[in-house]
């Protein structure tokens, strides 16, 4: 379909990062995670939009030539992903009434994210290239369209329980992801309207992934926490997408697979 024929989707909700924000990931053991989250809870409220320990299911897209993954290996990548939230763990994707289409532009230190809450049908239509999303000067949507034009489609899924704390002005967000799993996705078609069953598990993360995201300067307590995490972490973690695709291609050893 020519670009001019594409319709701009009706979006239920739109959330945009005001500017690029710092983003650091740490892999820690359970004891360290509990201490970190206790400290965080003393300084930040629970994130209003995140139900504690809800299941977050993220479906990542890539092209047959793995353009996103290859770009990620060189340190920067534009991710196209779809997120769903559930109280109990689903065994499929695209089964929700509302999905979040997310564009995320990563570099070594910072990230920029834009996300759109859309109906299930519209998410499928977007993947088929029939709809575009409202655009602004950052042009993340345009880059996502390029990926879709190059054959990007859902390839891999992560699931985890997230506990999120966030300052009221969203300038600082600290999250802990438990029970992180990586799954293959035998994608069949995006136009049947049926949910797609998850494929085999590629790996599990027995430890906890802590993410700190912030704008500007960290408050003192958070700066101390950041230092503590750097000391105590098993290592700074690459993105979940990079690990998932690495497992899929046999380029990453599975954690407790």
């Amino acid at each position, binding site marked *: 379909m020519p670009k001019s024929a594409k319709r701009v989707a009706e979006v239920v909700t739109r959330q945009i990062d005001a500017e690029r924000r710092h983003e650091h990931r740490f892999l820690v053991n359970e004891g360290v995670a509990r201490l970190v989250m206790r400290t965080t809870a003393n300084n930040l409220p629970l994130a209003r939009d995140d139900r504690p320990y809800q299941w977050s299911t993220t479906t990542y897209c890539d092209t*047959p030539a793995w353009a996103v993954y290859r770009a990620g290996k060189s340190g920067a990548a534009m991710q196209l992903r779809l997120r769903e939230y559930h109280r109990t763990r689903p065994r499929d994707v695209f089964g929700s009434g509302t999905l979040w289409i997310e564009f995320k532009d990563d570099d070594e230190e910072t990230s920029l994210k834009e996300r759109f809450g859309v109906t299930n049908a519209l998410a499928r239509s977007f993947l088929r290239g029939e709809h575009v999303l409202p655009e602004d000067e950052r042009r993340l949507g345009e880059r996502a369209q390029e990926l879709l034009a190059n054959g990007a489609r859902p390839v891999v899924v992560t699931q985890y329980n997230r506990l999120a704390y966030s300052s009221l002005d969203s300038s600082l967000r600290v999250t802990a992801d438990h029970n992180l799993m990586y799954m293959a996705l035998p994608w069949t078609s995006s136009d049947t309207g049926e949910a797609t069953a998850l494929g085999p598990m590629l790996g599990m993360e027995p430890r906890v992934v802590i993410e700190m995201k912030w704008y500007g300067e960290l408050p003192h307590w958070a700066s101390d926490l950041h230092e503590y995490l750097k000391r105590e972490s098993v290592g700074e973690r690459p993105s979940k997408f990079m690990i998932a695709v690495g497992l899929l291609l046999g380029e990453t050893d599975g954690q407790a697979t």
Partner: protein
Amino acid sequence: MAALAAGEPGVTAEATKVVVVEDDPASADVLRRRLQANGMHVDVAGDGVGGLRLVQEVRPDLVLLDVMLPDTDGYDVCLRIKSDPETADIPVIFLSARGEVVDKVRGLSCGAADYVTKPFQAAELLARIDAVLGQARNPRAPRLARPLERSASGRLVARLAIADQALREHVVALVAPRFDLATDPRADIVLVGERDEMPDDTPEGVPSLRITARTPRADEAHVVTADGHLARIAELVAREQRLDHDLQAAAEALIVLASAIASHDRPSPGHSERVASRAVQMARVLGLDESTRMTIRLGALLKDVGNARLPAGLLTKHGELTSDERAQLERHPVLGEEVLAGFHRLHGLLPIVRHHHERLDGTGYPDHLKAEQIPLEVRIVTVADRFEALLVDRADRSGVSEAEAVRILQAAVGRGELDAAVVAALATQVRSGGAT
């Protein structure tokens, strides 16, 4: 009355099977005695790996799972149970000394049916076990419901030819739970009133039953009383007929085709059978239903039937093929589809026959399909075919190990040729040693 299982007084052969995963031997022993005293069959594992192995072997009705285990944690074990389509419906109850709200929420969000904190009263634990098992056995329990099969509903269709209004309504009420009712001739069975005529337009081969309100005589083989057994009897008759049809058609086709193939030289005897077996196991890992697995099996067996129409000697030619010869060879999927097109019962596997040499990046043949234009069943057979080919020696190279073959196929995924999820299913299947 069920027989007693040897060695476990009071445990019946039909007893509820429970796997206990508990690293403290004393606690495990107390639990085992308590559950056995209540008529349950108990197997105990002392760590997560052993627990998962027991769950695979025993397929219990329930798993009691400690959170803190020596080799991993209970959450991990629970998620693995819930991630395997074969064990996902087995309810899990956590038993843990960790009693914080976050622990309970985390346990339940992993898919556990309940979370009991230690120390617990035996009576409370047994009550919770009963409640969980009761819900698991309730077919309408939403959280334990099995996922819908991906194939068509599979419900049988019955056609009624009963003039008597009262008898007709009674029969409808009896068979509705198992049959869809139809008025046209394309039904799996026709239920005819005792004094009614069989509809003229009923196709040949459709079975029928005569329905009566009385008890039939011993010599009335196809007369059935309209009572609580009617639906089951009708279903058995219809399914038997359907199976007969399928088997007959498949057997005829297979005999014809196998003969055709056998008349030609084959580069690797038994290859199709190995591919079919491997593809079915991969399909099981991917959670595909039995009907789809059957399609995959037949498709894998018959995918190269078009070779029978290739010039003699082409398949076994040593040395490089000319461009003409390669073009001929690459016509075998189309030739195979032509051979099978006349078999109505085999239409479902034609895409496998035609497209098993397509590649996700569009560089395959004959139609240069891309990505999801290639049906999942085809992608599975393609991977199984390439995998099995890598394992055997050929004139130009030696066979490789299964692990090496998986690595080679993962590299092909990286090049965009093969489906990543399908190769992941293969890797899972190979890693499990074929025990899927």
